[in-house]
């Protein structure tokens, strides 16, 4: 939490300065989301290689408070449409997150893989989970963030842009969420 507050303090400085390059402004994002696109902050997503249209939708939703997470709502509050586009385009150019060094427990990986096929995650997120357009990259996303997000879609406490994920998650159990997150975080 302290990290977030620091970042916010930083944000108010960084965004008032104006006339900065996107790289300079993005230093604020890196404080929580990690440098070079890979997050080391719990429950905070890696941004690297994210699909620009998806990132734009999320930044828009934070600005409009359609998606609620106070630090991000505060950060995006004063963004112009062009800011939203600049940040989402920039995020897409960051290197995609790398899989963790440990390959994972084979039995859990197998369970996760079977579930990912059963629920056809590959249908929209692509077979390599790189996403497309408005559908996010999820490959090698942080496991805690994946699990949290799937749970929030399931109980609809995180409102999607549309209702697709709420619909899909209706039949996925809590235990299955844990295995899916484990597998997708370690996907190679």
């Amino acid at each position: 939490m302290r990290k977030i507050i620091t970042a916010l303090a930083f944000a108010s400085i960084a965004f008032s300065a104006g006339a900065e390059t996107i790289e300079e402004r993005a230093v604020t994002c890196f404080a929580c989301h990690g440098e070079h696109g890979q997050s080391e902050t719990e429950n905070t997503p890696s941004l690297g290689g994210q699909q620009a249209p998806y990132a734009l939708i999320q930044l828009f939703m934070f600005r409009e408070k359609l998606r609620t997470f106070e630090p991000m709502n505060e950060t995006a509050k004063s963004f112009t449409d062009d800011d939203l586009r600049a940040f989402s385009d920039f995020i897409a150019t960051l290197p995609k997150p790398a899989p963790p060094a440990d390959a994972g427990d084979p039995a859990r990986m197998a369970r996760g893989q079977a579930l990912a096929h059963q629920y056809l995650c590959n249908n929209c997120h692509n077979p390599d989970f790189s996403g497309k357009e408005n559908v996010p990259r999820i490959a090698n996303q942080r496991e805690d963030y994946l699990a949290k997000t799937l749970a929030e879609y399931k109980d609809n406490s995180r409102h999607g842009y549309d209702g697709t994920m709420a619909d899909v998650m209706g039949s996925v159990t809590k235990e299955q969420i844990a295995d899916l997150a484990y597998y997708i975080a370690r996907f190679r």
Partner: protein
Amino acid sequence: MMSYSTAPRRLLLAGALFGAFTFAAAAQQPASPPAAGATPAAAPLPPGSPLIGRPDSEAAAKLAPVAPPPIPAAPDKLPLAKLKLPPGFNLEVYAAGMANARSLAEGDKGTVFVGSRLVDKVYGIVNKDGKRSVKVIASGLYRPNGVAFKNGTLYIAELSKVSKIDKIEDNLDSPPKPTMIYDNLPKDEAHGWKFIAIGPDNKLYVPVGQPGNNVLHDDAHGQIRRMNLDGTGAEVYALGVRNSVGFDWNPENKQMYFTDNGRDWLSESVPEDELNRVTKMGEDFGAPYCWQGNIIDQELGWGKNCKDYTAPVGLMGPHTAALGMRFYTGNMFPKSYKNAIFIARHGSWNKSKKEGGDVVVVKLNKDGTVKSMEPFMTGFLEDNKYVGRPVDVMVAKDGSLLVSDDWNGAVYRITYGKPKVAAQ
């Protein structure tokens, strides 16, 4: 015409009306298990999953629901030049900058109210001293897709409640918060957003879609209800409705017509979306058992017969997402359009080659059946991608036709005859 490499687990030949629908629609799971050696085979999808019926083919895996850009297009970036109308009709931008502009309703004093689905706002396009401006009428709403207007009152339908604002046009600068009148509605995201309209019986019509692509559901779903304008006296008016996002009443005989979206993943070519006519209260239109009047659903239709349901009066094309529709009751367009139905087809996602993405005009026979369906406004599809998506149509008091576009966050105006200065 279709070659699917994977054999379906179950091949159900249910009333073989269409050769095309005998393929992998019943394959509830990938026919080939995941490659890794130790991987257990995927279990069948649980009942109610929106993914049931998706064939395990590469082409199908490329299809996903299409989401519009969140930021409305700038007026000079609208695809006006690409949109085509029959000779003699003119097109202009009526208003822009309304993110995710969806359903339309006109107030007594000429305000055009615009609902949205992916944002939290209802907009008002205000006409004052010959100038149009856009105001936010209400915000902080949840999927406020539906708008209707009667006797000074604006009705707004969110995902699971209906509310109203009285004397809205007297308070456009600082509208009061909407007052809830009805919330005995399910909260499902799937097909939960609502089109609403007020019928000639002075009742408010509110649809409740099926809570998923192809699911059995309880008796609170898959229907159109009607109620008094204060939210009392709700009753089920039509059954077997999968997801209707547009209806209107035939000015000749006051019969209700509604569009309904057919299920996904059955095939590229069927089922087609429906144009239905309600001749008496309580009619059942077949979903989720019977599609387009003559296809029994291969999973849910066992023991059912399409003869037991009311068939559509018109077929609107496969997966085309026929949404908003209005009878043309204006005087501006040529006589041949009198009482014809304009229907906005939002356009498909569940189809390799996209279809729809236009406004069509449906002309009826004297007996209310469909005589013809022709393209009216086209050009929203370019290289199999959307440059815009029409959602609703509305006949304005002056006889012009307004068309909303939720992809660009805009409303267009169509007039007939020599272009004049649009402002009134």
